């Protein structure tokens, strides 16, 4: 495997929480059977909300998002990105972002398999 031209990619997608199930199903259709999901707070163009407790006003600038981390063979990467961006799109501000990073090594703990076979 040549560095800088990783055969495996990490796709990080920030999406609206209620889109998770749809995205997961759509990705299954593309052959993706694994991912790791975190609850995160997103800050961006989408405005948050105001909370008031006995007159103390708090501007909450962060909105709840889900972060999907999906490691995929390089050749699948663009289809995955495309799928997510289609399904997670609602057309309204705050739909999120997708970032692609190169992965140098991947390993499945249970079997010791590496690279694409580890996914």
């Amino acid at each position, binding site marked *: 495997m040549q560095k800088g031209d990783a055969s495996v990619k990490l796709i990080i997608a920030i999406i609206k929480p209620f889109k998770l199930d749809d995205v997961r199903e759509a990705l299954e259709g593309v052959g993706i059977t694994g991912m790791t999901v975190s609850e995160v707070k997103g800050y961006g163009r989408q405005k948050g909300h105001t909370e008031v407790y*006995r*007159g*103390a006003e708090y501007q909450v600038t962060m909105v709840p998002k889900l972060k999907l981390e999906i490691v995929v063979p390089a050749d699948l990467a663009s289809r995955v990105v495309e799928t997510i961006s289609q399904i997670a799109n609602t057309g309204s501000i705050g739909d999120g972002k997708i970032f692609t990073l190169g992965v140098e090594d991947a390993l499945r703990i249970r079997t010791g398999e590496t690279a694409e076979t580890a996914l």
Partner: protein
Amino acid sequence: MLKQTLKLAAALMGSTLVTGAAFAQDTAAAVAAVPNPGNNAWMMTATILVMLMILPGLALFYGGLVRTKNMLSVMTQVGAVACLAMLIWVMWGYGLAFGPDAPSGVMGQFISGGAWFLSGVTLESTAATFSDEVISEFVFISFQMTFAAITAALVLGGIVERVKFSTVMVFTAIWLTITYFPIAHMVWAEGGLLFDMGALDFAGGTVVHINAGVSALVAALIFGKRIGYPTERMPPHSLTMTMIGTGLLWVGWFGFNAGSALEADGFAGLAMINTFVATAAGGLFWMLAEAVSGRKGSALGFCSGVIAGLVAVTPAAGNSGPFGAILLGAFSAIVCYFIVTEMKPKLGFDDSLDAFGIHGVGGIVGAIGTGIVYQPFIGGPGDGSTGMGAQVWIQIVAVLVAISWAAIGTAIAAYLAKAVTGGRVTAEAEREGLDLAEHGERAYNY
């Protein structure tokens, strides 16, 4: 000898039995008197209900309002302060407030004496009610014990999230002795300054709420603001807990108010219905006040209004008709709303859980308002013998005396406690949270 106006005069009667000129004949009658099980049952129930207000009631109400990292600290302080108050009560508190041997002269207007360590109290001892009935003295002592305990715990609302546990304990011991017991004596015991003046306080508007509210404010000023207040975000960590606490406080408050009739009679029934409707009005009118001032009607607003209504109806519980009570509850909620949300931010003190803003202010509204709703023309149970103006004036004087006494007593207790134990936790401990720093635990390990 006994005034016909309704007051929480048990102490009066209890002490009449063993003191003064009426000694001989009254004692004879008293020894013979046996509590009606119905009244004893009711007063035990009422006592337990006030206990429910403290743990878990107030512990949850206050605990829900602080940040996660201070939850256990608040609950433990509320619990431990209450425990300390109970022990002090049976040692010297009951004696100072309601003991049979009040010192003669001016002193007797401020404190009583005797019954130290409950000496002389037996299974057969009784305390008089407002009619010819009696209840077991152990029950009366327990009932009043819970009042002392919750009042001490209420004060914490001004100083949570920053003061050492040890400081809180020392403060409480001194504060009860020099502030609570004398005020209870002044208001509720015959010979007490405000009692003799004719001040109306059915269930503790002055003794409990004005007293606790003012003390919380003074203590908040002495111990200072929380680090980060008011710029940092400090939203309540669990309004769910606060809502549970609100419900339990309301439920327990029937013991507080209807129990203060000392009998399961019509006055208790009146106090009960007033405690329903004044509170209902308080909860709804706080939300309404929010809406009118362009905010959203909030859950915490509802809870706050419920407490504001309960506080205001406390002195009036048996001293008002239901519609007087509704007015009082609604008005108290609106006034407290403006104090808490509009005035407090401007003044900038950190009465963290609004013990002053709700108990103090609501207590003042209630105490003075009681002079009005007591009148027969507005459906109150008063007989009109004391005119509205005169009664209101008496109420105002009582409020001013209570405010002054509470402020001075608290200052003394706070500075003493600070000197002995240090006062605030370190800045690092405050950042980390008192749960870990003071108690070595976390409230939640999900």
